[in-house]
């Protein structure tokens, strides 16, 4: 996941300075704080910006396309798929 920082910057998103300092302090889940917890956990748009890159979902797909188009491949390889659970 660390590699995400580079990719998020590649798509032109500036990381908010507040990333490291979060003041969310809700205690255990209740009906009353449900929405706060949900919104805290769900990703912000900028966190998903790397998904706007037109990734081919597999290296092999990229090889097939790059061979046909005579282009180089830029591969992001991780343990666990980089766009899923890595």
């Amino acid at each position, binding site marked *: 996941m660390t590699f995400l920082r580079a990719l998020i910057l590649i798509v032109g998103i500036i990381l908010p300075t507040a990333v490291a300092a*979060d003041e*969310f302090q809700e205690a*255990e*889940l209740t009906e009353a704080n449900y929405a706060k917890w*949900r919104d805290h*956990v769900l990703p912000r748009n900028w966190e998903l910006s790397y998904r706007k890159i037109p990734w081919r979902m597999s290296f092999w797909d990229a090889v097939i396309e*790059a061979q046909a188009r005579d282009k180089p491949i830029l*591969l*992001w390889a991780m343990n666990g798929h980089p766009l899923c*659970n890595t």
Partner: protein
Amino acid sequence: MQKLAAEFVVAADACDRMQKEFCQDEDALLFRKFAKERTLKKGNRGGAQGHYAVAPSGELLAASSSADPKVLVEMMKQGLAKWATLPREQRLLPKSPDPTAAENWRVKEKLYPDDGLVLRVVARDRTRERWPDSNLDYAWFRKDEARTLLPTELKKGAKHNVPRELVQRLARFHLLDNVHALNYTFFPKEAIEKARLTSTVVQIEGDLVSLSFEGETRASMVSPKIIGYEPKLLGRATFNLKEQKFVSFELLAVGMRWGLGNCNQRHNPAPALMGIVFTLAGDSPAERLPPAFISRYGW
């Protein structure tokens, strides 16, 4: 940067399988050809992980294992410069790669439940200690499994306990600490001490059944890792009877996690609150990627 990236065919893929020496899949043979050639100026982040600029032939153009965007840009520039010097026979494979070869290793993708329920799963700590501080996975349900999230008799106020087997699957493979990185430690069956999820029909309007969810799970083990998670579950969803599918879905798990996982970059084992949200996934190619532990579903 985007202009540079446009010069490439960009791809993201898991290297777990491809980097294993015994793997003879065609993509793995090609991958290892250039991954082995990589020389890193800074420490390797683990296995063959990183960014590569490569020719379709498997010729390494450049590589980096750095999270620094400047390093990545430099790597891309180097890669394009080397690409420009390569003759065609070095750039390309001698014959076109076989698209059907991938059927040998992309078997999990065929399990995608087109008419079932596909949820995006996001985990995050209450207290953000360092970035990245959230991770994403998917949870799949076949059509018949998705239907068991609702009471059999649909009337306002009807309550229904979701089959334990299904809740247990959530607790074992999805209610996990992968906040900082993929966690190879899932919970075995015997680690699940509680697994209850109750759905209640809140309202029925035409074909739309509104539900609420409430429940709890507790997973705890001490060997080979001391690790556990004990969340309370709350949620809401809408099921379309005519289309026989969920048209909205939220399930939120919040509770204490403890211990360290395997490769998940968790450094502090002390108990702390962690939240996990399940919402409907889209249907883009990335949203159709299989759950990390799909092979454990028993499908």
